[in-house]
């Protein structure tokens, strides 16, 4: 893991309150798996903000983040300009173990701002010859992003809560539309969604990317624990996760 000042090389709006931020720095070379995250320091805020790595290019030393404005920290982040730098700690945690997913077909299920980490994951799997079907859920048409990018990788089902794009409803409502020819599913989104997904797909092997408020982001403070079913009884999302095998942790 590195603590580096990364240069902003792209920063643009993708959808309502949703921004793409491309950073340049050595840290890009340390990324082991898609689904890892970086911990970003924003001036004036005491705690760092965890943001998933949406894409990365170790050859050009770039890391792409996609973030949504949820509060004052992410709002302040929107004001940073190309050429300025950001204090970034990472890459953190365990991502989706793409090299160990020996599947023919994988189902991707992303909810809202849970979509970004799944993008580089899907790309990587596709490169490895895995077929991809995706379900992407958003609140509304204006919140949707990366839909075309996922279409380039395979079949895509979109859901919106208000029906303004794709099917009306939640990601789980689209599950019946998907042909049952996948061996693995990979999901990221709010915990309630992950739980609903895991409950509906008990027979598939799944990987879930979780979120929790973090202190250190490196495994030292025990802020981000989730109950697990192993002997130790807990996992730290920041270093044992954020990606876990479905069933490994207790989704409350």
């Amino acid at each position, binding site marked *: 893991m590195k603590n580096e000042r990364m240069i902003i090389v792209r920063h643009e709006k993708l959808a309502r309150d949703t921004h793409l931020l491309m950073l340049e720095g050595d840290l890009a070379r340390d990324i082991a798996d898609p689904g890892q995250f970086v911990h970003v320091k924003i001036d004036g805020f*005491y*705690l760092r903000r965890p943001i998933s790595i949406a894409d990365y290019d170790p050859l050009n030393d770039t890391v792409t983040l996609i973030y949504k404005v949820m509060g004052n920290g992410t709002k302040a982040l929107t004001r940073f300009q190309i050429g300025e730098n950001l204090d970034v700690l990472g890459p953190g945690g365990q991502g989706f173990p793409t090299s160990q997913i020996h599947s023919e077909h994988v189902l991707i299920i992303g909810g809202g701002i849970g979509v970004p980490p799944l993008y580089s994951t899907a790309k990587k799997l596709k490169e490895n010859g895995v077929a991809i079907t995706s379900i992407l859920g958003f609140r509304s048409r204006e919140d949707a992003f990366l839909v075309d990018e996922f279409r380039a990788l395979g079949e895509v089902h979109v859901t919106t809560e208000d029906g303004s794009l794709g099917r009306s409803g939640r990601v789980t409502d689209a599950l019946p539309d998907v042909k049952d020819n996948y061996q693995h599913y990979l999901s990221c989104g709010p915990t309630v969604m992950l739980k609903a997904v895991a409950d509906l797909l008990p027979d598939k092997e799944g990987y879930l990317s979780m979120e929790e*408020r973090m*202190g250190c982001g490196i*495994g*030292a*403070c*025990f802020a981000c*624990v989730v109950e697990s079913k192993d002997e130790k009884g807990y996992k730290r999302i920041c270093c044992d996760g954020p990606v876990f095998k479905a069933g490994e942790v207790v989704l409350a």
Partner: protein
Amino acid sequence: MNLSVNLPGLNLKNPVMPASGCFAFGKEFAQFYDLSTLGAVIMKAATKERRFGNGTPRVAETASGMLNAIGLQNPGVESIISDEIPFLKNHHLPIIANVAGSTVEEYVEVAEKISPHVDAIELNISCPNVKEGGVQFGTDPVLAKEVTRHVVEVSHVPVYVKLSPNVTDVVEMALAAEDAGASGISMINTLTGMRIDPKTRKPVIANGTGGLSGAAIKPISIRMIHQVYQAVSIPIIGMGGIETAEDVLEYLLAGASAVAIGSANFKNPFICKEIIEELPAVLARYGFSNIMQAIGGAHVEKVETPVLRS
């Protein structure tokens, strides 16, 4: 500049150590720098049995600080002795065990078990985040005295009592610890606080309240150390909001003989190392030729030399 400070049980090559609960047992920070750089290390709290701790969210951000209610999650004293201390021993630096409990018996048992493996004990009678016990030991001088006395009796190493700032009279608490045989005082633990999320209309932290740490609390800690320094004759390990080498100097001047850095490790994982590196220059800049001159410096009446502001 020689930064070494000798305290009961602790020969510190410099006065800077990570604070309990903010550094776990060192492994995570060892990837960033060589832990032997540190003056010492204070481990995460140890209880008799393994504890899972509180529900999540366990942290919340505040202005220049944070709240936490981890709830003393730890693998239990025996696992700490067998699985964690050996790693730290490899780094050849003084190790301080933070001992917690809900009854005098638990404190005593943990201290008895862990003390042969460490250089000092930090007796945590001040964790605001556990419901069963712990807190009242930190706010009632009679109970504080009792638990300290028993722990001092069984401990193989010097005992530093960690005080809570959530009291009317911190001097009374420090005196109780000193009377009971403590070799030093560690101060301060976190101030009890709360944040409410207007979206959910509930406290942000699952536990309701949490402990406030970070730069926000530094003035309170400095005030309390300044008070306690005048009242006791045992050394003080100072902490609360330290982020720079100047902050360390402010603590030394107030009366701390050494300092611990907590939450700032989360902002900058290199903070302890960087402060240790900067400290000699900062001491020199303010006219100190060794570290001992600074300790308690705010208490000595100095001649003022007003200079032309230019």
